């Protein structure tokens, strides 16, 4: 078999196909093995070609391992030989059967490029998984170290296999694709306040520090060369060393991020080091370019004017880059203002504009990193406010994913590149000198600058901070990419520089990255705390800002706060108006923060299964978020209302305003609590443009909520009962009369809802509230008072968009103006039969029990649990329903207002008692006895409620509900007290 006769690259793809023709089994198996190996090799080779040569764009399909043909057959390369032989066999097989139509085609060259990229991503990702298998290991060894090691191993394998390193970190690939993803992520999620608070220090370190490092390293290396420490073979002049110093001196954002994110130093320290690494890009770019041009013209021809040009260039590159970024930030903010109808591509705008900011800056050879960073910082506020919650999540995760994978690839390729012996030349003198100089000058620079800065900084950087900053001056892929970009013709010592850079990068990333964690521990550097923000902080922070601004104004100083205040005024008056949606513009940041905190609480509650509920947190009144997560805030509400044992005062029952209403409530609660909406087996609707809250999803969520609720049942906290809460709780609880529903058969539970049944035992354990009250009414009253429509629909009477205050305990009234959210609207349409049945059964069961006020019977535990389940139900099922409207991407806002409404109404009741109409006055006696301290007394013995005159009149009451003028029905969001 003539191995070398036909290099595989010259084969048209068709020749590679038709393995199927292989008959001989043994030949087949061996052939397959070899083929696999060959394919692997091809993959690698083509990838290498792709990566190293991607400066010129490849026409995809044409590219079939272009590096192979000129290489020819490397004699004695086993891997390649194998692959060749495999190919040969295929060819033979091919020839046996001749041409004709082939059923399966082997179109490798067609898919090659994307395939290789995908494979690389896969390898990198799998590598990440593997690293994180061992928790202990990863806490000690930074991921970046492991990735570099993996890269070394992979590179070694390739080198052994092909005798030639095919890949390295290609500069254009790095600068055009890998770096932007990381910088974009970093810029977009940069804590802006922290960044600008420390901007002075960051700029100093980035500009002065980098210049200092570059010059000192360059000159010192030159001095070392003159002294003969560096070998004669390194043919480099002063300019070469300065150039090298420039590219090696910049702290690398990728490396800093990778290492510092695992170290968790305090925020201020992190932002200074990381901010420096981002901002110094401008310095690096300019220095690099200036020196390159100097090297090209030759040091002798450099005129004085050129130095000034260099300075001017620096200003243009940095300021221009920043401006480009800000311009794109404004455009991005403006675009996202109008994406309401195209929510699904909202995130795309973010990526595109941020990336375009980078590319545009590159286009004008400005500082692309600066541009991207400022685009991210600038746009973040407006974009986050404009786009939907889902888009926010998408942006966040996509950015993190991309950044993470880019980082992984960078480190792996750094490792792989290092194996390439042909690219670099070793000189111990140069390497060791560089290492020492870099470290020393970094330390000296940091200490010197800090000494100056500390005279201005409010929070001085102490010695420990300085140590960490010096030690954290990591070099990384940027330096490597820059050194690879050098022209070997112009810079004679390029190979030496490459080797030195690799060593420096490896040393800083691996050695320093490995040791910085113990160092930080040993020095007791204040770590970042994972403290949750509190609303107090948010409030006080704002107040303090105002205070400081006022003080500066009074003292006649135009300091930082003065200007920040000016900026905020400007932002508020002009920018926000321009860049924010009208609906968002009105929202207060503090309010947003408040909602976020509430959501976070609720999430943590869920995450921890309700165990860690320090009652203080839980009892917080969370008005559900307007924006989203109804199902989450729900839980808080739910807990809030159910978190305590229940004391039932029989007096209370006495004063229940209308039995009809209660009954409706009861019916409603039981049904809503136990009926799932019918399940659709498949989803019929597909749209590329919307992501409707799928039927399935909604149902899953419903089931989840039920389960959640039943779990929460078991959690009880009696510590933090607050008067209002208690009141609302009791008000609701007392209105539930489980007795009427003591026939569980009434509830038709859909058979497939297994989960509901599973949760039943839990419920039964928790029979804390047992209360039974008898209605004096006769069953006949019901048909009278309930409108006929209710015979079909179990729902609350479809009336009263704006009920009187007394009515506020009705859950479906909580969301004013919204259609009764629960079973009524939707479910009845879908399963009228079930509901009808339920209704009939309930009527009949009622008739059987409740003629006269009877002594209490023990309540069926399940029923009592069920009825409690149906309880306050702040939002739980309004979420699904709200989401059920076909176009609803984000849940409708009014879903969240049931509770605050109620709460506020109570407040109003307190304050404006005299204004209350008769209906609400009925409630008053009801509330006063409820201001008990919150220990849960044992369930009181149920007693027949004395029939009161009021209660005999449910119809009247109900009518009053119906006829109440619908105050603010058109305006679901603003529940002003006057509406009541």
């Amino acid at each position, binding site marked *: 078999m003539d191995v070398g006769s036909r290099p595989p690259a010259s084969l048209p793809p068709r020749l590679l196909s038709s393995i199927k023709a292989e008959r001989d089994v043994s030949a087949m198996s061996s052939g397959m093995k070899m083929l696999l190996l060959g394919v692997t090799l091809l993959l690698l080779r083509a990838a290498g070609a792709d990566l190293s040569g991607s400066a010129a764009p490849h026409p995809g399909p044409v590219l079939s391992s272009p590096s192979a043909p000129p290489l020819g057959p490397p004699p004695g390369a086993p891997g390649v030989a194998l692959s060749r032989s495999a190919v040969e066999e295929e060819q033979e097989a091919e020839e046996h059967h001749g041409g004709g139509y082939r059923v399966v085609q082997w179109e490798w060259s067609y898919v090659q490029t994307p395939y290789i990229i995908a494979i690389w991503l896969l390898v990198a990702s799998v590598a990440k998984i593997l690293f994180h298998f061992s928790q202990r290991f990863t806490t000690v060894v930074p991921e970046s170290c492991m990735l570099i090691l993996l890269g070394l191993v992979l590179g070694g394998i390739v080198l052994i296999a092909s005798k030639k390193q095919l890949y390295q970190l290609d500069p254009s690939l790095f600068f055009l694709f890998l770096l932007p993803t990381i910088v974009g992520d970093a810029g977009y999620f940069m804590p802006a306040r922290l960044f600008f608070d420390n901007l002075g220090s960051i700029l100093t370190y980035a500009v002065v520090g980098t210049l200092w490092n570059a010059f000192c390293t360059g000159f010192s290396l030159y001095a070392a060369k003159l002294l003969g420490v560096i070998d004669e073979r390194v043919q480099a002049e002063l300019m070469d060393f300065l150039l090298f110093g420039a590219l090696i001196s910049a702290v690398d954002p990728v490396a800093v991020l990778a290492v510092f994110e695992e170290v968790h130093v305090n925020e201020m320290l992190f932002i200074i080091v990381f901010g420096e690494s981002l901002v110094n890009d401008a310095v690096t770019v300019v220095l690099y370019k200036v020196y390159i041009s100097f090297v090209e013209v030759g040091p002798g021809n450099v005129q004085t004017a050129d130095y000034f040009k260099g300075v001017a260039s620096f200003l243009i590159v940095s300021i221009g880059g920043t401006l480009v970024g800000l311009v794109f930030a404004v455009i991005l903010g403006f675009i996202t203002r109008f994406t309401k109808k195209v929510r699904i591509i909202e995130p795309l705008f973010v990526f595109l504009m941020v990336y375009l900011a980078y590319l545009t800056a590159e286009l004008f050879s400005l500082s692309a990193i600066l541009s991207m960073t400022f685009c991210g910082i600038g746009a973040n506020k407006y974009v986050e406010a404009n786009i939907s919650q889902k888009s926010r999540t998408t942006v966040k995760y996509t950015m993190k994913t991309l950044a993470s994978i880019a980082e992984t690839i960078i480190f792996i390729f750094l490792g792989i590149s290092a194996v390439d012996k042909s690219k670099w030349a070793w000189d111990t003198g140069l390497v060791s000198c560089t290492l020492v100089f870099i470290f020393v000058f970094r330390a000296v620079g940091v200490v010197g600058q800090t000494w100056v800065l500390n005279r201005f900084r409010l929070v001085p950087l102490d010695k420990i901070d300085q140590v960490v900053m010096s030690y954290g001056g990591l070099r990384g892929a940027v330096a490597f990419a820059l050194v690879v970009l050098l022209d070997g013709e112009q810079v004679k010592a390029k190979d030496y520089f490459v080797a030195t850079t690799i060593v420096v990068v490896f040393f800083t990333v691996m050695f320093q990255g490995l040791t910085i964690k113990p160092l930080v521990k040993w020095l007791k550097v204040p770590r970042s705390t994972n403290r949750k923000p509190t609303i107090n902080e948010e409030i006080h922070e704002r107040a303090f800002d105002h*205070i400081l601004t006022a003080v500066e104004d009074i003292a006649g100083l135009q300091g930082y706060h003065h200007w920040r205040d000016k900026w905020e005024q400007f932002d508020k008056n002009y920018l926000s108006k321009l860049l924010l949606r009208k609906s968002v513009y009105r929202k207060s940041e503090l309010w947003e923060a408040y909602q976020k905190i509430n959501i976070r609480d609720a999430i943590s509650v869920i995450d921890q299964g309700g165990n860690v509920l320090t009652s203080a947190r839980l009892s917080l009144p969370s008005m559900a978020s307007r924006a989203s997560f109804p199902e989450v805030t729900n839980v808080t509400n739910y807990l809030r209302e159910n978190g305590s044992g229940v004391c039932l005062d029989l007096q209370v029952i006495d004063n229940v305003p209308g039995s009809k209403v209660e009954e409706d409530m009861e019916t409603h609660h039981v049904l809503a609590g136990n009926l799932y909406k019918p399940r659709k087996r498949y989803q019929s609707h597909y749209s590329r443009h919307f992501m409707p809250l799928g039927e399935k999803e909604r149902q899953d969520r419903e089931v989840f909520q039920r389960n959640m609720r039943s779990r929460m049942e078991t959690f009880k906290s009696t510590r933090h009962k607050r008067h209002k809460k208690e009141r609302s709780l009791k008000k609701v609880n007392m209105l539930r009369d489980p007795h009427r529903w003591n026939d569980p058969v009434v509830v038709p539970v859909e058979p497939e809802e297994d989960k509901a049944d599973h949760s039943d035992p839990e419920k039964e354990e928790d029979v804390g509230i047992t209360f039974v009250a008898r209605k004096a009414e006769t069953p006949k009253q019901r048909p009278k008072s309930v409108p006929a429509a209710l015979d079909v629909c179990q729902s609350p009477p479809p009336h009263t968009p704006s009920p009187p205050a007394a009515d506020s305990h009705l859950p479906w009234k909580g969301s004013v103006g919204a259609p009764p959210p629960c079973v009524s609207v939707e479910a009845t349409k879908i399963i009228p039969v079930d509901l009808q049945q339920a209704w009939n059964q309930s009527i009949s069961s009622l008739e059987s029990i409740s003629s006269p006020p009877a002594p209490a019977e023990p309540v069926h535990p399940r029923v009592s649990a069920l009825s409690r389940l149906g309880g306050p139900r702040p939002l739980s099922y309004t979420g699904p329903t709200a989401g059920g409207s076909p176009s609803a991407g984000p849940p409708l806002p009014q879903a969240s207002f049931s509770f605050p409404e109620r709460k506020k109404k109570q407040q109003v009741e307190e304050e404006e008692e005299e204004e209350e109409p008769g209906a609400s006055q009925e409630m008053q006696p009801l509330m006063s006895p409820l201001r008990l301290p919150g220990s849960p007394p044992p369930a009181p013995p149920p007693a027949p409620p004395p029939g009161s005159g009021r209660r005999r009149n449910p119809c009247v009451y109900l009518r009053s509900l119906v006829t109440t003028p619908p105050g603010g029905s058109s305006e679901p969001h603003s529940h002003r007290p006057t509406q009541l």
Partner: protein
Amino acid sequence: MFLISVSAAHLLRLYERFQFLDKDNRGHLRPEDFEAVLELSENPIGDRIVEAFFKPGQETVDFPSFVRVLAHFRPTEKNRNRDKGQPDPANSRTRKLKFAFRLYDRDRDGKISRAELLQVLREMLGMQVTEEQLQSIAERAIQEADLDKDGAISFDEFRKVGPLELGSAFILLTVRHLNDEVSSLSYWRSG
């Protein structure tokens, strides 16, 4: 000695400012005089801060008191040797926070009540949020901070739950440029 010589100039600057505000050369400032600071009118809680310059019951503030109030905002020196027995300097962390606390606590009963907090919030947030939202924010804030469950925030609670946790209380209540100006206050007063 160094301190005095440096800060004399700064103090002079503050005194010029004082004189600028004191248009009638009465030697003291009245609340109206602060209206000359235009930016204050845009400051949502500017009134409170102006108020803080005046001792309860007094209508005027003279220059020493003026500087004394501003002294709250100068940076805390880290290496200040702690003289025993001396009261906290005005720029100590506690005093800073106390100053802020008093801005909330308008009735000076040592507690930020719900109503007081609500009032501050209302001033700061203005029209942006509804009254109801304000209430729930205030409610939550009090619940977070209220350790002894008396429905109000005492100074201790304020200190624990509030801004100290920010970790940067130094920054928060420090004005950079007041650095040297006011640091000589004690010398100035004694001498």
